[in-house]
């Protein structure tokens, strides 16, 4: 504003002076207004910030801190500060690496297959033909199921004595798939893939519809057949969404808890003891030290995955 006062020309001076005189009280009011403006700003962000402070940032730091304390086997004995030694012992333990291995196995069993099925279904349903709305709604429908709903349905269908799936698999009366060292984790993964198929389908369908029709038309005019158009035009344009689904899927698989809790509780014989369930088990056993170290590890693993995603987005902004 004050720049206007520097306007050249003697003729304007009088006006400027008058303006300046008139500005003085105004200026003070404006100062008050800035203060009020800031107060409004802080007031508006305060509720969100207060929640984040109490339930996100404070507990995150405290989790790191609790990792320094070893919990005594009896609740009456206070925990003891042991510095980094607990981090070292937990992170080099067999149990930790075994659970991490199970988690990676689980990621491999769920993420690629889930994406493949999602892209396949979305491509299949991406046609203007009669009745397609019915199929689209049906493929999206598992979005309406929660992890718990999906798990209870499959748990009951896999029941070793009366489960329909057990009957079809010819193992009725036996031990059941969820009690099998070999098949428990793949079974949990199957439930997870099924429960996620609706979300992946919706995601991929939206991405397919965002592909400009004239690009496909141009490829058709250039003589590219259906298959060629899919590999050369559709799939490359779909790749950012596939990448997004991959990252989201990895993060979700690391957090997969409900299906383990409802289907296997980490068993049989620790064959589905993934990192998050190991954390929960330690927590349930009041071993807060071990649980905190595991939570810290989980945090940094997921942070690394997220940062890879951010870097990728940055690159896309640059080159895309």
């Amino acid at each position, binding site marked *: 504003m004050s720049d206007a006062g520097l306007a050249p020309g003697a003729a304007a001076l009088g006006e400027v002076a008058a303006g300046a005189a008139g500005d003085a009280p105004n200026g003070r009011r404006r100062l008050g207004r800035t203060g009020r403006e800031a107060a409004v700003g*802080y007031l508006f962000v305060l509720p969100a910030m207060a929640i984040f402070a109490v339930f996100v940032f404070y507990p995150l730091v405290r989790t790191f801190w609790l990792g320094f304390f070893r919990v005594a086997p009896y609740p009456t004995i206070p925990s003891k500060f042991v510095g980094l030694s607990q981090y070292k012992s937990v992170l080099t333990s067999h149990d930790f690496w075994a659970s991490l291995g199970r988690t990676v196995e689980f990621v491999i069993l769920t993420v690629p297959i889930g994406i493949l099925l999602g892209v396949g279904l979305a491509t299949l349903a991406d046609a203007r*033909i009669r009745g397609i709305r019915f199929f689209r709604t049906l493929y999206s429908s598992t979005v309406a199921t*929660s992890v718990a709903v999906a798990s209870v349905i499959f748990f009951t269908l896999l029941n070793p004595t009366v489960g329909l799936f057990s009957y079809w698999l010819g193992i009725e009366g036996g031990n059941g798939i969820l009690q099998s060292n070999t098949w428990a984790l793949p079974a949990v993964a199957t439930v997870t893939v099924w429960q996620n198929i609706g979300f992946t389908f919706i995601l991929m369908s939206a991405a397919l519809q965002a592909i400009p029709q004239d690009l496909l038309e141009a490829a058709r005019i250039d003589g590219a057949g259906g298959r060629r158009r899919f590999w050369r035009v559709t799939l490359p344009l779909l790749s950012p969404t596939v990448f997004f689904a991959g990252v989201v899927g990895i993060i979700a698989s690391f957090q997969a808890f409900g299906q383990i809790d409802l289907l296997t509780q980490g068993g049989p014989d620790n064959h589905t003891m993934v990192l998050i369930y190991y954390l929960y088990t330690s927590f349930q056993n009041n071993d807060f030290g071990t649980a905190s170290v595991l939570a810290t590890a989980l945090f940094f693993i997921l942070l690394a995955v997220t940062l890879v995603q951010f870097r990728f987005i940055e690159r896309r902004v640059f080159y895309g």
Partner: protein
Amino acid sequence: MGRHWGRTGRYALLLVAAVVVGFPIYITVVNSLLTPQQIAHRPPTLFPLHPQWGAFAQAFTDAHLGLYLRNSAVVTVSITVAELVTSVLAAYAFTFVQFPFRRVLFFVCLATLMVPMEATLIPNRQTIGDFGWYNTFPALIVPFMASGVGVFLLRQAFLQLPHDLHDAATLDGYGHLRFLMRVVVPLNRPIIGAFGVYAFLTAWNQYLWPLIVTDSDSVRTVQIGLRQLQSLSIDQINVIFAGTLLAALPIFILLLAFQKQLIRGLTAGAVKG
């Protein structure tokens, strides 16, 4: 070959996929309408010729499903409303209000996206104990009354509004609250709706946190109720199926009613990112 075969082939594949994806839900519906004896019968019954509706009533009487559904509704609606209010306010401030440390505070909001709930579980459980909130609704609601995703999504949307709009409103004597309620919120109804549906779905499906901060039926949500339901004995297997359907029903209705918002909410991250 030709067009005709291509179309028939596509229908065949669509149908096979529909059977595979739809079967678990279909058989759940069928089994909820059979007696336990009929479910155990071999070869299995794949269509209920004489539907029995008793299992649904039993889900309410024996498995307390009504109570669980009510608790879920209280928790989910509270979280959704609170997240909408806090996110709209913060996103508005980060877009239209000038104040010191605005950028820093926005990055603080973004940083919460990198902290999974599982990483803060242990101290948060202790905090709930310190507040005396174990087994209460506040334990299930208060930690989720703000959302980094919400602040981020809504700010992105608010930034798209033409800046003259704010200037014009200011000239007309609109204060911040009036501009927010009369202009910003109405113009952004679609994205606010999309985030609302997303928030509702996320809150409804929570499992780990409710499991850790409650142990009484009086506040337990339906997802944890399913855990109790699953442990019913085999001779109530039809009740397990009926209860599972009832637990999923509200979200099915939501999906049908708000399909557009749901799709927008679920894909928002991918489209932006």
